[in-house]
């Protein structure tokens, strides 16, 4: 029994959730009988809110506050070793790993859904899923992957390394940090439960009026997205405050590693824009549950309102995804080229201008939506303008590689692959930003291929690269290089084969979110299906490599890459207080090639 003590928080959380569920159900029943509104929706809403609170209470998020209030000494049990990853912990390093593992699992699950879709689409007629399940699986794939892309690097990697990089002991608000992780499991559970409630066939965008009138599963989706937004706001708040306040002495803004800058830029977006989408989702919930008419055209509502509100968040959100990836990319480019980052200041400026511009381009998703026509040209202009600061990232990457001493280990291979992929993703964005071509391409697989090139080719590739890069930091062990390269090469090749084909199919007139399509497109779709199965296989070496190397990889030493940033100056894995001796900084982050640089004490690899 004592061995299982580490499972206490989760168990208590589940018990709390069940109690909350029952209480909520009771409240819901009384409310619905009082008002006579649709009972199931009200019940779901109340049950969920109470279950969420019960879960958080049980897990221990508010333990010490409550204890303090009723006058018991605050204390919380924290397990040791690997066991602490299963319990409530306020250590950013533990939370980072918890985030990362959760989201890698979710990524594989989302990919599994994608495989189901591809099997259905291998046949132009009815295949595996059919009309009843296709839309739900597709929407689940979309929202799970979006969540992965938004939170995996920020919540996982930057949670782990950002405080180390700036020489802090922890993030600014450790308890809020834990809270923002512990509201993720309910999100995942809600999403996975949706098929039991009739699924939701609205895609990840959930446009009303469809999302107001379809099955109850939609409500679960709305709550899941809303909760996820909350987590994202809290995370952003934490990272901003941490960077503003907790930098080690001497760590001026000009000495921040570029990855930290990218997190700052992304966090600005997530604390602000997320509120707006939360409101959008709330409007849909109110329409469904409280009988309001935001989107009921017959009673004075306007469906287009949602599209504006949604994209006001969701366009900036794509930069929440890609900015940390850019940061990680440039970070690694410098270390693995053994050269300082090219144009550091320019890159910082471009990150900040991307942040600013990202709020002003949302309507490029609405060129064919019937919005006022005078908006087309301005939004086209600003959207295309954003490629100038984005292009700076390419300048910086190439400028750093140029005449460097390239060390082509797995993370660096991922960097090279990402530059290539995101170039295609970005350039095809221009086709969509152009009003004329977008009229044809909107809602075709061209768009689908575009955003897989940016989100997967840019963000997810960098996620994997960064996992390899910081793996020794987190575990104190080396991953297996051969398996890492095998993962990269198979993933890179199959990935490109898959999504290039998608561009062709898309321009050819295959529209998205369909389970059946004209027969002349079948050949392309079969190819895509085959490549996606192969792509799925490429993750086997990854998973094996991570698990096996964590358990019994070679011990890495503190700084296997000989990198110059602060996170490598402490032990690997770092002690609980991060730095045995609090650091003081007197140089910039990338000192490569500076005369008199003391070669960082590196262990040979």
């Amino acid at each position, binding site marked *: 029994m004592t061995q299982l003590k580490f499972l206490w928080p989760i168990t208590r959380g589940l018990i709390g959730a069940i109690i909350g569920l029952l209480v909520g159900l009771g409240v819901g029943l009384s409310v619905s009988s009082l008002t006579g509104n649709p009972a199931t929706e009200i019940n779901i809403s109340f049950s969920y809110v109470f279950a969420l609170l019960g879960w958080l209470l049980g897990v221990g998020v508010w333990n010490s506050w409550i204890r303090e209030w009723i006058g018991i000494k605050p204390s919380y049990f924290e397990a040791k070793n690997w066991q602490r990853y299963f319990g409530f912990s306020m250590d950013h390093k533990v939370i980072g790993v918890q985030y990362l593992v959760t989201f890698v699992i979710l990524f594989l699950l989302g990919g599994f859904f994608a495989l189901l879709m591809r099997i259905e689409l291998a046949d132009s007629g009815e295949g595996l899923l059919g009309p009843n399940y296709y839309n739900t699986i597709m929407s689940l794939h979309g929202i799970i992957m979006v969540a992965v892309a938004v939170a995996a690097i920020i919540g996982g990697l930057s949670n782990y390394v950002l405080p180390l990089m700036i020489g802090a002991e922890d993030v600014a608000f450790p308890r809020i940090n834990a809270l923002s992780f512990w509201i993720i499991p309910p999100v995942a559970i809600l999403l996975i439960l949706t098929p039991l409630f009739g699924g939701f066939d609205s895609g990840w965008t959930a446009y009303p009026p469809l999302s107001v009138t379809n099955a109850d599963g939609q409500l679960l989706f709305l709550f899941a997205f809303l909760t996820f937004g909350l987590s994202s706001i809290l995370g952003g708040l934490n990272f901003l405050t941490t960077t503003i306040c907790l930098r080690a*002495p001497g760590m001026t803004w000009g000495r921040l590693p570029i990855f930290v800058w990218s997190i700052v830029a992304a966090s600005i977006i997530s*604390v602000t824009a997320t509120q707006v989408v939360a409101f959008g989702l709330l409007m849909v919930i*109110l329409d469904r549950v409280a009988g309001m008419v935001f989107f009921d055209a017959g009673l*004075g509502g306007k469906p287009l309102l949602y599209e504006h509100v949604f994209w006001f968040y969701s366009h900036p959100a794509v930069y929440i995804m890609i900015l940390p990836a850019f940061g990680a990319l440039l970070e690694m480019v410098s270390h693995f080229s053994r050269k300082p980052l090219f144009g550091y200041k320019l890159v910082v400026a471009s990150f900040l201008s991307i942040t600013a511009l990202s709020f002003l381009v949302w309507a490029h998703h609405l060129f064919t939506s019937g919005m006022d026509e005078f908006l087309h040209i301005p939004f086209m202009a600003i959207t295309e303008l954003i490629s100038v600061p984005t292009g700076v990232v390419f300048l910086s990457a190439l400028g750093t590689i140029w005449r460097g001493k390239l060390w082509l280990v797995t993370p660096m291979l991922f960097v090279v692959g990402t530059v290539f992929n995101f170039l295609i993703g970005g350039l095809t964005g221009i086709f969509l930003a152009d009003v004329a071509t977008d009229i044809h391409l909107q809602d075709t697989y061209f768009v689908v291929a575009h955003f897989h090139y940016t989100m997967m080719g840019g963000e997810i590739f960098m996620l994997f690269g960064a996992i390899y890069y910081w793996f020794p930091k987190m575990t104190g062990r080396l991953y297996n290089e051969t398996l890492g390269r095998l993962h990269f090469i198979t993933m890179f090749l199959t990935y490109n084969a898959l999504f290039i084909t998608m561009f062709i199919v898309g321009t050819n007139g295959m529209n998205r979110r369909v389970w059946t399509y004209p027969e002349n497109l079948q050949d392309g779709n079969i190819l895509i299906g085959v490549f996606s199965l192969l792509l799925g296989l490429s993750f086997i070496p990854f998973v094996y490599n991570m698990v096996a190397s964590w358990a019994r990889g070679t011990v890495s030493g503190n700084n296997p890459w000989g990198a110059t940033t602060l996170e490598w100056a402490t032990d690997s894995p770092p002690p609980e207080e991060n730095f045995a*001796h609090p650091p003081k900084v007197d140089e910039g982050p990338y000192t490569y090639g500076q005369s008199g640089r003391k070669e960082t004490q590196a262990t040979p690899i």
Partner: protein
Amino acid sequence: MSTHSETNTHIGNSLSLKRIGLWVFILSETFLFGALISTRYYLQGVERPDHLNQPLGLVISIVLLMSSLAAYRGEVAVSYNDQKKFRINIISTIILASIFLVGVGWEWYEAFQYFPPSSAFGTIFFTMTGIHAFHVLTGMIALIIIVKMGSDGRFNSNSYWGVEGVVKYWHFVDVAWVFIYPTLYLVN
């Protein structure tokens, strides 16, 4: 990047940390209210039904502004270590806030007859006042907590972040109303 061992004096101390955290949070909430207000104009333009209870709206606005004043005086009092004045002022803030909430409830009751949630203006009206009232409610809970903490002797003139934070948040909630009130009651 070289490191020396030295005492860990972070650039920020824990007070500025909390302050900045709160400001970031307020920035975030601004976007929520911004979205609320834009939605009103998007859906309804500047149309306004005749049945709004104007006198009531004005009264509760004044009540809410007065509560902000009381909260401010409470914060000043605690900074001078005047516990009694602190308690009186914060409690009057809470009372004024409850009057505000009762007023909103009354308006809701009337609104149900003229523009229920299932009408376009009703949708806006109930959502805006509802979300705002929710913020007032959370603010009230926070105020109650600081009253209790104050009576446990937890604040003095050197350390009263709890009061400062809650009062700042309260001002923010009031300012939000300053924007909501005209969007609902005055524009035409």
